[in-house]
């Protein structure tokens, strides 16, 4: 199946975390599990926070890969990807919790529901992700790939500009 990977369509928006801003507070996990499961339980959240070191924090959820390895990996065709939004949709009747998709995901963005024994993947809250709304540091953004690149350019330009000005002895 040597297909050439297509780029993620320009219109798809995903939840992206800026590790420079992420403080590791896990509020995204709380609001996700409350929204989707009506309880607080990080194990039932579709987004997970990881702290490797006090200086290294990040939250990760579905990256909307295209083509999506999880969809390819599923032996029961339980997963399909929306062409409109890129969201991976799960057919609970077909999924038997075999977890091949979890293995296929490079980002650890898929979890097995502890009780229902079916997998859970971020559904972007119908286009208005709660985690992005509640992140107190605005570390999470709901963003297209082009805007992501634009944001990175602005950040790096600011940084370079600040360094150059400081080198010239001008306080900014």
């Amino acid at each position: 199946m040597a297909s050439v990977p297509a780029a993620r369509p320009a219109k798809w928006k995903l939840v992206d975390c800026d590790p420079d801003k992420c403080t590791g507070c896990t509020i995204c996990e709380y609001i996700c599990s409350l929204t989707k499961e009506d309880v607080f339980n990080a194990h039932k959240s579709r987004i997970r926070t990881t702290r490797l070191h006090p200086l290294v924090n990040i939250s990760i959820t579905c990256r909307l890969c295209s083509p999506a390895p999880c969809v390819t990996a599923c032996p029961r065709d339980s997963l399909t990807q929306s062409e409109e939004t890129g969201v991976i949709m799960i057919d609970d009747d077909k999924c038997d919790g075999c977890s091949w998709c979890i293995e296929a995901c490079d980002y650890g963005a898929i979890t097995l529901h502890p009780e229902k024994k079916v997998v859970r993947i971020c559904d972007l809250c119908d286009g208005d992700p709660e985690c992005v709304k509640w992140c107190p540091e605005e570390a999470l953004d709901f963003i297209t790939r082009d805007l992501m690149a634009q944001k990175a350019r602005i950040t790096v330009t600011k940084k370079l500009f600040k360094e150059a000005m400081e080198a010239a002895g001008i306080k900014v």
Partner: protein
Amino acid sequence: MLGYAGRILHVDLTTGKVETATLKEELAKKYIGGIGLGMRLYLDNSKPGVDPFDPENPLVLTTGPLSGTMVPTGGNGHAFVSKSPQSFGVGEAKSHGHFGTALKRAGYDGVVFKGKAEKPVYLWIDDDAVQLMDAKHLWGKSTGETEDAIRAELKDHYIRVATIGVAGEKLVRIACIMNDKTRAAGRCGLGAVMGSKNLKAIAVRGSKDIAVPDKDKLLEIIKRQHERMKGPATRKYRTLGTPENVLVMNSIAAMPTRNFTQATFEHAEKISGEYLNQRFVAKIIGCNSCAMRCEHIAVVPEGPYKGTTTRIEYEPLWAMGPNCGVGNLDAILKGMELSNFYGVDAISIGDIVGFAMDLYEHGILSKEDVGLELKFGNGEAMVEMVKRISLREGVGDVLAEGVKIAAEKIGKGAYRYANHIKGVEMTGYDIRGLKTAALGYAVSFRGADHNRHGAYGPDVKGKVDRFKAEKGRGKLVYETEDLYTIIDSLIVCKFSRGTYYDGFKDLAGIFSAVTGIEMTPEELRLAGERINNLGRLINIREGLTRKDDTLPYKVMHVPIPDEGVAKGSFVSQKELDLLLDDYYEVRGWTKDGVPTIEKLNELGMKDLVHIVKGKLAPAPSPPKKPSKKED
């Protein structure tokens, strides 16, 4: 009863037996959680007069009703309570991070440890599966190494660990209990109690649901708190952090310097929050559920301490900086990193080094005694002493007893340089010129502390004449004490205190929204008062009296020498007596500081009246020997 897990875990380390008991709603509502519930569980599970290191002295660990929920700063707290090996009264210390969240998710409001394991062990709580694990290979490891090793051997990065370092193993009386690498249950030496039980660590994985009665109502409150947390009430913590205090305290001559020799520090600029943030702070992170984030992680960029990475706050910065005359942030940061590494209270260790420097300068400790040029200002010597005290090496062995016991052992008038209250070392406020705070410090049930009350507030903000001792200060102390006690029982972060605009009303609203238990603001205030009385009762049971509500020798005998507004200020015995009388009266206690039977009945503490019986008579002279009762 939501919010609460409804279960207390009892672990007998001698027999290895593990049991769970039910937490009754009545007890939960009366003592809330955190230090309140912890002290009550301590009282109910201990015998009077027990030595802190005796296996029969229980170590209690609690979460709060808000732990594990999204309530900002409330989701993450935990507290330890035991008899303090420093004060020989009640010892309590709280910590934040992620550990408390995990413990609640595993389904526990508290854990009571009793007995002593034959060999080093750690407790592994995996929801309902609880077992003692061999910790021989962890004994001798630092706090961070232990956390990493446990996560690696249990194969789960999300396991949370609270652990002691080498200092706790060696029964250093200022040993703390660290969690999440940068957070400490620091004060009162509870890490040494843990070490005395051969308990190296507690590892937790929690995967249970925490449900709330009304999701929308709770989210509304959380939204409001998030907004407030972005506002002026938390500005200090979000920007420069508590090290902002350096220049503030210095400017009003309230920053103890060189072990309370002066109250201002000539190198304050070099160790200021401003300079720290400009040169050292690499990132600000947050605890679980926090919407304000305050944790300033500093990295030393160059020099002999290059690469040193540590969380930084005003108190330890003060203790290892101005209090030791050290004006070099590189060394201060190293001292703080080592405190976390060995697991000692980073405040007390600075006090002890400052105390040793003072003794050295006054010829009470000689160069032969210490083997170092232990002069004020010597940053390298300070760092070396942090290590020696933590490891009980050389002179560090006697100093590891804390300034009070060390002064008794050293003799030669060393007590005059020992800055402690009830055996617990001082914190970074020069209370010679902050007399409301001085009262708060004197009556704090866990010894010298600025966090049992907010009594420095009115002094520093100029709401009262801070150089004057007068009637009325008792009320100021009592009010903030009751609020602070509730903050520590719920548990929410003290840095968030300014966001509860309506005080008990806001806090009671949060409590009810999470637990579904009705709680009026007045009931919550009463619970705060009840918990303060409880702390007092434990101390009374353990033999502490009015005499222990006192201040360090220097605070009462050596006036502030610095030129300026604070010059000449100190707290005389007469002033202290006036303040104590006023405070006891507002509290409804006797002249000896004993809660009356009427007061205890009013607070619904009839079951504890036996503790005060026989101690209520007006102070005769000489005072009667307190009658010991087994109960």
